[in-house]
């Protein structure tokens, strides 16, 4: 069927803030959906609470609402916009759940809206356990057999039926308490009796364990006429037991013979045919490695992280096609945009190997429990394309930016054989390197396969790399002939990796390689393995005969992307890169993007004129520059990933557009920067770099406590702490120098003032500040984790004037061309500068949206030589809006066991939402709602534990809560304070005082909000840490800064609720 003409206006629901498990992939698919619908002349109404996304940009949809993703607000949007249709499944699980709820509550009927694409009935069939089970029975698809038992005998009987090992899951216990895997009857007796005891209802689910089976995924698509295709098969290198988001994944599946492949493909297509999917669907299988036995693990009738990966791996744009199907088209009516001549109704076939490796946040969360299991922990991922599995794996490893250029890993090397064996059996983020080390020590592959249940095929490939590494160690530069070099390059080794193995410098390898004439060629990703000519230039490097990437003779610029999403460098940077590409395109310049993140818009096949899907290392980037010879490279928008290439590219005489490397260095190097501040007479908190504990203590006495301490080379406040006395400081320094003797520790006086932040654009002459952002929490909370308010509410004209003045002078002194980000503290009516980043920052999408100043567009044009004046801007601060827009951070700490939850100098948030209102309080209210924070009401219970130094400040806030009818529960100290002041409080036991204690109170579900102001973070043994962890794990809202608490009470006093607040469209933010 062609386009359904009855569709005029479609509601698209986004996925909200970036959290672990739901990240940038939904900006990618949502953006594609918006474009695919709008290009048919159909209006799109978009709702998403996440301001960092490209999909929420002006112009991406007909009407954009950055509003909380709750039924109430979505209904308000519907009421106002009256869309006739809604498309489910473009906004991840969040969007899907909301669409189901709109349907269940009759809201869709009320507004006469239809669901286009996969229907709600179909969605529901795959969703809950029971209907999924029924669906599988109906379609004759096997699932892991399971049964609910209420006594031991039934348990034994069922286990004997399905065979051991058996997974035991007690019903209604949190986080799998009391469950386990029973290998035999005696273990089952032990675990099951405990489980029956622990379960509130005396019910335990027994399930056949399929741990260790191969995990295979299929991305499939079906249209309204029933045509279906397989887009891609994917195979997890880590077998069932590790979440697919935490697994290394290869595409296509590499260890299946035709029989298994077609068995699973048929099963996937049978399932989607049976539930009448109209769009994309992901089907996950577990396959017994020793037979044809398989089980369907789950299905996801929507776009997903896997569909984004499959799209990037094949070049087939799943979200776009799914949107077209929702509009009525059949697959054979949709053009394949990659070839331009063929149709979407075919199965992509690829002629390379794709490897995805997760990016975990453990470098930041050093205390975290790193074991990988069924709960996903990765914040992002990299994808690499190679002609061999070895090369795509090695490319992936170096894309991770973890300092690894080979599989030889320092920590793994230091582990004993026993340790390595134990570690590979219970995987964590270093398993790949542990495996390599085990192989390096000659441990038999068969044995490793037995322990890890990984397929021998993958282990052999790792062994190939290890063997090549060992062979390289015996070689010298002289013995390296062309054939050897080519062999190593074909296997994916980098110049840096080889330099490490040979013990020579990187330039020596580079020069030798050039001398031998070994340079990469680039091949196209074309969906069809070369059968048809592709028009979308999407490339990967390999060492082979024919190069398909032919440079044009147009003016061209390379934009360096920001790599995998990690804490501190998220989707915001992709936003910037993409907008820079748009600006360059508008200027008529050919755009070339280099990036390795499959989840993003920047790596969509039609975002830039040319896409190189490559690691962002010096060598990989320079190879492309040597081929393309661009007139310049833009680094400012790719976060630290791009900025750290500046010096290298400068040495190689590559023209860098915008601020020059020398100035970047001046801003990044503390001593040089201090000199500049001195010269300009700009204040900063006093501080010093120290090289020893003794020096630190002496310096501390001069500066006065509290002190902000941190390692000198950091991203996102890594390892930063506030120390309030000498004991804390000595502890910190001792630890720091133990970890890294080569670099100093920075000690600054900590000023507990108001933090302010600007992103400014400078053309060398004029400096434009789109807006000043005020942080709600006082200094000491990482800027990425504090609530950010625009326009500022509490600063004087004098300070505003100073901010302009200081920004102007610094930007000019640093000869900034393009973006600069400056963070300030206002302390006792004085302005101090605390940080300067000579690049685009994470607040740019936010400030762009709320001020309507096209920041990246202007900055990019400046880099091309235009001036602010020529674009109609002048020095100064852009007029502020009357609408207030507040950015509220969102955390994923519940997913990361043993990670500190409280706000501090180290960044922990993964995403953000925006609250838009006509006043601070209204915007704050909506911000809290959007972030999912519970707003207490009369009768709510607040659990409060406040450190001594803040008790006095807490009291008036507590009184206000009490006046609003809130009840308190506290441990002794805070409880006494409240009691003494006539506030009713129930005293709970501390953890050491027995049960039920404060943790039980939290787990019981009776607490609505927890206020816990910690003395010190990161101490896993403290009560506070356990309270915060329990809060996170039980999804109880937690506040750890009194400033946030004060804002909350103000919100409550205002009486704002979902009834008396209204939705504001982006175009109305003025």
């Amino acid at each position, binding site marked *: 069927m062609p386009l359904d003409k009855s569709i005029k206006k479609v509601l698209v629901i986004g996925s909200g803030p970036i959290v672990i498990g739901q990240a940038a992939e939904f900006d990618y698919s949502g953006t594609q959906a918006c474009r695919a619908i709008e290009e048919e002349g159909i209006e799109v109404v978009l709702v998403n609470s996440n301001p960092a996304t490209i999909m929420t940009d002006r112009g991406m949809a007909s009407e954009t609402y950055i509003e909380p993703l709750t039924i109430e607000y979505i209904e308000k949007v519907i009421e106002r916009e009256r869309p006739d249709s809604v498309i489910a499944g473009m906004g991840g699980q969040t969007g899907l759940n909301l669409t189901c709820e709109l349907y269940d509550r009759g809201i869709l009927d009320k507004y006469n809206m239809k669901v286009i694409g996969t229907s709600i009935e179909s969605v529901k069939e795959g969703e809950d356990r029971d209907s999924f089970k029924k669906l599988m029975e109906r379609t004759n698809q096997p699932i892991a057999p399971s049964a609910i038992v209420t006594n031991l005998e039934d348990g034994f009987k069922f286990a004997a039926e399905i065979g051991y090992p058996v997974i035991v899951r007690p019903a209604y216990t949190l986080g799998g308490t009391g469950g386990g895997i029973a290998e035999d009857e005696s273990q089952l007796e032990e675990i099951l009796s405990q489980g029956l005891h622990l379960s509130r209802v005396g019910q335990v689910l027994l399930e056949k364990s399929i741990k260790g089976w191969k995990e295979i995924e299929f991305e499939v698509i079906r249209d309204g*006429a*029933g*045509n*279906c*295709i*397989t887009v891609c098969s994917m195979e997890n290198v880590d077998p069932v037991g590790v979440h697919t988001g935490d697994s290394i994944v290869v595409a*296509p599946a*590499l*260890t*299946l*013979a*035709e*029989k298994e*492949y*077609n068995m699973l493909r*048929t099963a996937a*297509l*049978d399932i989607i*045919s049976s539930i009448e999917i109209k769009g994309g669907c992901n089907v996950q299988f577990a396959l017994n*490695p*020793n*037979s044809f036995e398989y089980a369907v693990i789950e299905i996801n009738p929507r776009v997903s992280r896997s569909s984004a990966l499959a799209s990037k791996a094949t070049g087939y744009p799943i979200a776009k096609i799914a949107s077209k199907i929702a509009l009525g088209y*059949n*697959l*054979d009516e949709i053009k394949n945009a990659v070839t331009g*001549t*063929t*149709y979407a*109704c*075919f*199965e*992509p*076939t*690829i*002629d*390379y*190997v794709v490897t995805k490796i997760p990016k975990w946040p453990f470098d930041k969360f050093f205390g975290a429990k790193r074991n990988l299991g069924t709960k996903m922990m990765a914040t992002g991922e990299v994808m690499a394309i190679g*002609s*061999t*599995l070895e090369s795509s794996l090695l490319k992936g490893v170096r894309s991770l930016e973890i300092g690894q250029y080979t599989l030889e890993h320092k920590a793994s090397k230091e582990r004993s054989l026993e340790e390595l064996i134990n570690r590979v059996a219970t995987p964590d983020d270093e398993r790949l390197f542990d495996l390599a080390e085990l192989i390096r020590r000659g441990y038999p592959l068969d044995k490793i396969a037995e322990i890890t249940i990984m*397929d*021998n*095929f993958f282990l*052999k490939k790792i062994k190939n790399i290890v063997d090549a590494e060992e062979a390289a160690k015996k070689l010298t530069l002289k013995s390296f002939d062309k054939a050897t070099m080519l062999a190593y390059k074909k296997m994916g080794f980098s110049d840096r990796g080889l330099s490490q193995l040979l013990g020579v410098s990187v330039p020596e390898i580079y020069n030798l390689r050039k001398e031998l004439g070994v340079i990469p060629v680039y*091949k196209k990703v074309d969906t*069809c*393995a*070369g*059968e*048809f*000519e592709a028009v979308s230039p999407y490339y990967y490097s390999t060492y*082979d*005969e*024919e190069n*398909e990437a032919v440079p044009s003779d147009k003016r061209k610029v390379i934009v360096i992307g920001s790599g995998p999403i990690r804490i501190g460098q998220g989707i915001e940077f992709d936003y910037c890169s993409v907008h820079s590409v748009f600006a360059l395109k508008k200027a008529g310049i050919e755009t070339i993007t280099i990036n390795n993140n499959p989840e993003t818009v920047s790596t969509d096949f039609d975002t830039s004129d040319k896409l190189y899907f490559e690691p962002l290392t010096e060598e990989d980037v320079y190879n492309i520059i040597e081929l393309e010879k661009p007139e310049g490279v833009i680094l400012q928008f790719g976060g630290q990933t791009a900025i750290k290439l500046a010096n290298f590219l400068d040495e190689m005489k590559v023209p860098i557009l915008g601020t020059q490397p020398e100035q970047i260095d001046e801003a990044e190097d503390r001593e040089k920067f201090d000199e500049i501040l001195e010269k300009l007479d700009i204040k900063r908190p006093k501080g010093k770099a120290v090289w020893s504990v003794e020096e630190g203590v002496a310096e501390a006495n001069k500066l006065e406590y509290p002190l902000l301490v941190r390692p000198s080379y950091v991203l996102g406040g890594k390892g930063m702490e506030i120390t309030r006395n000498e004991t804390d400081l000595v502890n910190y320094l001792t630890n720091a120098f133990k970890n890294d003797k080569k670099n100093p520790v920075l000690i600054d006086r900590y000023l507990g003032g108001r933090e302010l932040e600007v992103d400014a654009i400078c053309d060398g002459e004029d400096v434009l500040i789109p807006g000043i952002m005020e942080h709600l929490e006082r200094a000491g909370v990482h800027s990425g984790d504090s609530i950010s308010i625009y326009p500022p509410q509490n600063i004087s004209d004098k300070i505003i004037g100073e901010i302009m003045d200081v920004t102007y002078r610094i930007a000019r002194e640093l000869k900034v061309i393009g973006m600069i980000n400056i963070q300030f503290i206002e302390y006792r009516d004085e302005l101090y500068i605390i940080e300067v980043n000579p690049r685009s920052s994470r607040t740019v999408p936010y400030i762009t949206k709320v001020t309507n100043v096209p920041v990246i567009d202007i900055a990019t044009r400046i880099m091309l030589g235009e001036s602010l004046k020529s674009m109609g801007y002048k020095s100064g601060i852009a007029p502020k809006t009357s609408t207030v827009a507040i950015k509220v951070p969102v955390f994923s700490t519940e997913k990361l066991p043993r990670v500190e939850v409280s706000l501090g100098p180290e960044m922990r948030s993964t995403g953000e939402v925006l609250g838009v209102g006509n006043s601070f309080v209204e915007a704050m209210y909506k911000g809290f709602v959007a972030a999912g924070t519970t707003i207490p009401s009369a009768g709510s219970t607040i659990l409060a534990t406040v450190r001594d130094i803040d008790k006095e400040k807490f009291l008036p806030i507590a009184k206000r809560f009490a006046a609003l009818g809130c009840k308190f529960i506290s441990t002794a100290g805070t409880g006494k304070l409240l009691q003494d002041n006539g506030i009713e409080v129930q005293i709970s036991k501390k953890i050491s005082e027995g049960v039920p204690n404060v943790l039980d109170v939290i787990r019981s579900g009776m607490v609505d909000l927890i206020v816990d102001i910690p003395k010190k973070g990161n101490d896993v043994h403290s009560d506070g840490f356990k309270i915060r962890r329990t809060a996170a794990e039980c999804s109880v809202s937690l506040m750890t800064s009194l400033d946030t608490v004060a804002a909350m009470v103000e919100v409550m006093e205002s009486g704002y609720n979902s009834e008396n607040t209204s939705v504001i469209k982006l175009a109305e933010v003025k």
Partner: protein
Amino acid sequence: MKAELILENGMRFTGELFGDEREVVGEVIFATNMAVGYQEAITNPASAGQIVITTFPLIGNYGVNAIDIESDKAAMTALVVREKCDFPSNFRCETTLDSFMKEKGVVGLCGIDTRALTRIIRDNGTMKGIIALNDMSDSNAKAKMAGFDESKLVMSVTTKEKYTYSDKGDRNVAVIDLGVKRSTLEELAKRNAKVTVFPADASADEIMAIKPDVVFLSGGPGNPADAPAVETVKNLLGKVKVCGIALGHMVIALALGCKVEKLSFGHHGGNYPVKDLASGRVLITAQNDNYVITGLADGVSEIFKNVNDGTIAGFECKRKNAEGVLFTPNGGKSVFQDGFVFDRFLSKED
């Protein structure tokens, strides 16, 4: 051992020899579906005379077993890959690709930029090629290539004697073996057919002697015009239902007076979208064809169409009770699969 693939246009690609190490001449084609299914392709009689480039770079990952074969002997002339896997892994794996090809007499060449080679074939069309072990001059290569004769291919793979594949069933099917795959015979037998297989040059009388309900022409290698069955089919048309797949369907088409022409680089893969013109449904089909019907005779109508290049992918001739499809049905019974084609062939309704 190094060896060269020399193309008809003079281009040379150097690689490492594996499998059966000898000089061979064949028609160079590329196949896009060999990440899985290489074992079936090597043993598919329709691959006779072909030097097959696999577009997927890693071949042999799951090894080879004794079961998943389409015929006892390997028909493919040579396999050209980027990388062959010497350490396969699969619970049914019995040997490596290399030793299997050695045993079956199939030449292998690895270490080739298969994508570059594929693009050359795509842009220049299918051409002859030679895998040369020693330095071979252009003229020598040319002479050897000129000696390659595809007209004998069908006779090289067809059964020498008539045989019974399955002796029970309510439909009596005579298969004309132009290079039949074992799985095709299985699909017929599975549908309760008594299956008798005839050599490609069997006469109409021989075939009619078993009083078949249906005559089925299999797929196979080479040019349909060279197949002796064209004349046989002319004699069968109107007397019995005649149907066929791939090469077989083109043989029927020629017998009906349709026009058949060579495609530039053929269809060799598993992802060809074909529209069933009656239902409007699109099937993803497997094809291994160098030829295609380009003109229909009177009374012959198109029933399947290739969505991408618009080529005729199936026809019927009601008057003569004949039909055929260009693709090779895999036989699955699901709604998206093409097994219904066999059902249709064996249907009792005319």
